[in-house]
């Protein structure tokens, strides 16, 4: 069954089907253990910092961005001023700025979403459904339900696990030992293999084709080594994209 079909006059938009929603849920399954522990760790940190349970759950439900939420705890206040709200907002923006680039990179699929779903569905945009969506679209999939299904799954789980994390925080062992900090980077790295095709589509060969990625990697490492914070992602990624823009090639694609 389709949520957006009009049989006589098919719209130019991607379909959103129940099956797609379900597939989206299935595709993020490998990520759920890591995300549960991450979300619970935020809940535990929030309890420790002095947020109420309701505030912790609101943070997960509204902000819905793990790294930003965790870092925001370091800037949390008991008495808020305009200046401290502005500061915490800027930090959240800086940590999530990578999603601006991710949105641009996935624009070719997101633009096909039915208009009334488009801006709402982007509330559910995370690293996880970016990576799952990139892969699914690159493999020829078009059902926008995958994006929404993956996002809804992640959001619900994220909000729910905040609660036991908050109440039972001290029971969580060391997530480091079980490599839970590495699940997302691991999935990111495997994506490089199918993405290689998009880079070869620039029509450059061998070493030249790899140049933008090399620049992104080296810049990211250099920024990470010299600056605190998360600017290494955005600056590294932009330097790779800029390198590709300035290089010849791409006419073939």
């Amino acid at each position: 069954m389709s949520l957006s079909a009009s049989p006589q006059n098919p719209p130019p938009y991607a379909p959103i089907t129940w099956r797609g929603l379900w597939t989206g849920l299935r595709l993020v399954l490998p990520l759920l253990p890591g995300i549960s522990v991450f979300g619970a760790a935020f809940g535990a940190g929030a309890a420790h910092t002095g947020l109420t349970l309701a505030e912790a759950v609101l943070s997960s439900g509204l902000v819905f961005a793990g790294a930003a939420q965790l870092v925001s705890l370091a800037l949390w206040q008991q008495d808020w001023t305009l200046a401290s709200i502005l500061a915490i907002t800027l930090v959240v923006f800086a940590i999530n700025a990578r999603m601006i680039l991710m949105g641009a990179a996935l624009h070719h699929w997101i633009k096909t979403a039915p208009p009334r779903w488009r801006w709402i569905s982007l509330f559910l945009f995370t690293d996880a459904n970016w990576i799952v969506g990139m892969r699914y679209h690159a493999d020829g999939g078009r059902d926008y339900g995958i994006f929404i299904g993956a996002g809804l799954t992640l959001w619900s789980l994220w909000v729910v696990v905040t609660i036991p994390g908050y109440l039972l925080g001290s029971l969580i062992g060391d997530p480091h030992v079980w490599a839970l900090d590495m699940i997302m980077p691991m999935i990111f790295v495997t994506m490089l293999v199918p993405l290689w095709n998009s880079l070869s589509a620039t029509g450059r060969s061998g070493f030249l084709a790899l140049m933008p990625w090399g620049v992104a990697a080296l810049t990211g490492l250099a920024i990470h080594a010299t600056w605190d914070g998360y600017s290494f992602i955005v600056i590294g990624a932009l330097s790779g994209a800029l390198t590709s823009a300035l290089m010849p090639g791409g006419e073939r694609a």
Partner: protein
Amino acid sequence: MSALFTVHGGAFLALCSMALASYLCRVGGVWLMDHLPPSPPLKRALQALPGSIILATVLPLGMKGGVSALCGLAAALLMMILTRKDLAALSCGMIVVIALRQWGF
């Protein structure tokens, strides 16, 4: 118990402001691409962008995660190149990280 369910006014404003910042990041790139005129350099930039995001994210995080993390990432990548199966790659990488961390790396 009721203290658990309190939301302080200032905290609520801060959370709303943080939520707005996150949402602007989520829609910003999409909105921007709606409004930028397509051009060959932009197309080339976008072709390199996803991999650039991944490398600029993963390598620094790998360095931070230590030897175990870097070996795990390499194992996952190798497995993906060999089998093209993401679950195999993910499991392989995770096993390497967990094993190395058990042994104190």
